[in-house]
């Protein structure tokens, strides 16, 4: 009988300890609520800002690439214009002269 009474005391102690520990766990979780909230909030904002920064950097790189492509097109176009001028300048001069003389004749 004595052994059973002791066991019951032991059981009661175990349960009390467990309840106390359980309360402590929940109390700690409640006390960490704000800290976790703030950390997660700031982490998400930082991630969004980093993503935005990355998007903008990528667009700058893309814009630069397109700008270079347009410059390349320009260089080719200018070269082509010079070739056309060289090939046609005599004909153009002749036509301009003919036009001028025709205007003199009225």
């Amino acid at each position, binding site marked *: *009988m004595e*052994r*059973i009474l*002791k066991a*019951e005391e*032991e*059981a009661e102690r*175990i*349960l009390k*300890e*467990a*309840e106390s520990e*359980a309360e402590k*766990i*929940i109390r*700690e*979780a*409640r006390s*960490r*609520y*704000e800290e*976790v*909230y703030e*950390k*997660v909030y700031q982490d*998400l*904002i930082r991630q*969004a*800002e980093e*993503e*935005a*920064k990355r*998007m*903008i950097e990528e*667009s*700058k790189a*893309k*814009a630069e690439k*397109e*700008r270079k492509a*347009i*410059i390349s097109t*320009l260089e080719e176009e*200018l070269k082509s*214009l*010079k070739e*056309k001028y060289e090939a*046609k300048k005599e004909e*153009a*001069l002749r*036509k*301009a*002269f003919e*036009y*001028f*003389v025709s*205007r*003199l*004749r*009225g």
Partner: protein
Amino acid sequence: MAEKIAEKIVNDAKARAEAILKEARKKAEEILEKAKKKAEEDSRERREKIKMDAQIETARILRSAVADAKVNLRWSIAKEKEKYVLLVLEDLKAKISKDFVGTKEYYSLLSEMIQKSLQVVQGDVFIRLRKGDRLEKIPLPKEALSRIKKVEHVDALGGFELGSLDGKIVLDNKFESILEREERNLRVLLARCLFGS
């Protein structure tokens, strides 16, 4: 027998204690999970604004850079075409001076032009010729010559000015003036001929 009962009492207590702790940990996890979810919800609007601002900025960067480059491209091409057109216009003046002025065809044309001008200006007239031109070189009929009472000379590429003696009417047929009047048409003609545009 009592020993077994005592052992069972303790073991049951341990099992229950474990269950209490497990429940407490679960609840703690739920509390922290709730904090995370609330942070996600509360930050959503701000995160979406950051993303939207970035999308707008991205589009602006691309549009602006590409548009600027295209404008520069068009401007540079137009400027280059203009340069070549002007070169031919300069060549035209040189050709007129070198290959045309002073030729038989030149004087013949001057004659035609002077006679047309005399139809516009009534009575006696003055004429200003290019330095180097002489009235005698121009094959004009006597009636025309008789109306020209005064001959002067001016710096000119070619052509002449002809006007009434009182100076009220003056026709400017100097080649520079004709070229200036015809420049717009000449530019169009040259651009078409050189570049097909």
